[in-house]
């Protein structure tokens, strides 16, 4: 029985790798600009508006709940938990959407622009898988048990997402002009020609 499970797991692993390699093979450089812009947009959204520690802290910290529990009736507490759950779910879904956008770039186009080895791509794929699963798990936990149910998973999601963001920022750095005024000058020159 154990052997059967082992070989099944091995077979599934090979199947997964095969799908991964086939997906790598299908990607073409055409339309790459759109993929790059999408990836940059996803990264900016994650770093700019979805990961600020003050905002995330305010959403998931229990300080507000403690205040509510100490000073308001039960129906206000329920209303607060419903409201906070909706915000927490909004955050989780937005993080998930942006992560899916970033993953699309890595699985489809990254090797043309970002010089990523197959090993790194595989490790990134695994990271994305863990993160997206964590987002799904968080969604369920928040839905069932409220916004303050899983602070550790929130913390781990933030840390892992921040790592992927840092890595992606490095790989997509070439999309940020060092001196935008030079680009504007070049553009003006080209228009004059």
């Amino acid at each position, binding site marked *: 029985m154990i052997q059967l499970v082992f070989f099944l797991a091995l077979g599934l692993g090979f199947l997964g790798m095969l799908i991964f390699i086939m997906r790598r093979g299908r990607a073409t450089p055409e339309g790459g600009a759109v993929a790059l812009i999408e990836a940059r947009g996803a990264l900016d959204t994650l770093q*700019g508006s979805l990961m600020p520690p003050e905002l995330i802290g305010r959403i998931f910290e229990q300080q507000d709940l403690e205040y*509510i529990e100490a000073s308001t009736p039960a129906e206000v507490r329920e209303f607060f938990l419903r*409201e906070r759950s909706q*915000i927490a779910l909004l955050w989780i879904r937005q993080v998930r959407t942006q992560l899916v956008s970033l993953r699309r770039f890595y699985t489809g186009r990254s090797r043309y622009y970002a010089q990523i080895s197959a090993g790194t791509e595989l490790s990134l794929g695994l990271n994305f898988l863990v993160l997206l699963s964590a987002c799904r798990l968080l969604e369920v936990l928040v839905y069932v048990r409220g916004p303050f149910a899983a602070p550790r998973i929130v913390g781990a999601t933030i840390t892992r997402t921040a790592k992927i963001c840092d890595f992606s920022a490095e790989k997509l750095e070439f999309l940020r002009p060092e001196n935008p005024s030079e680009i504007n000058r070049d553009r003006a020159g080209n228009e004059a020609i």
Partner: protein
Amino acid sequence: MTAKPKRMDVLEAMDDLRLRTLAHMQRPLDRLIYLASTRDYNTGLYYHDGLAARFGEEAACEALAECHNEAMRELVTSSLEGLVGQMEGYMESARTRPTDFLGMWRGLEPYRVAVPVGTDPLAAGFLFSNFRVALAILDARRNVRPGLEPDASPRR
């Protein structure tokens, strides 16, 4: 309003605004509502005659917009307890009957138009949600203490 103002002018205009006007408003909520009221809803541009006369219209507009964003950030990071306190203070300064004030704020949700343009949807959603909870808390407090209702006519 087309020319881009110099950064120095904007910074000076912001200092001036903070010192002369915003310093009199202790609560970020008051600052947010005041700064939103200086914005033209058709164009999204901010106007302030005194600032414009000193620093130019463009610099004044940018200074008001940046201070508006600042007030928004302060309010978003305020605790719920802090927000309830700010709303209580604002309600008192509005010189309206608390029941009318709470009813209007729940019905019209004026805070929705008080946020700066381009505010991140998550931050805006979080603030709106906190406003709704704060209104529920204030409402619950009033229901608990009906005897504390002030007189029926608006204060003069």
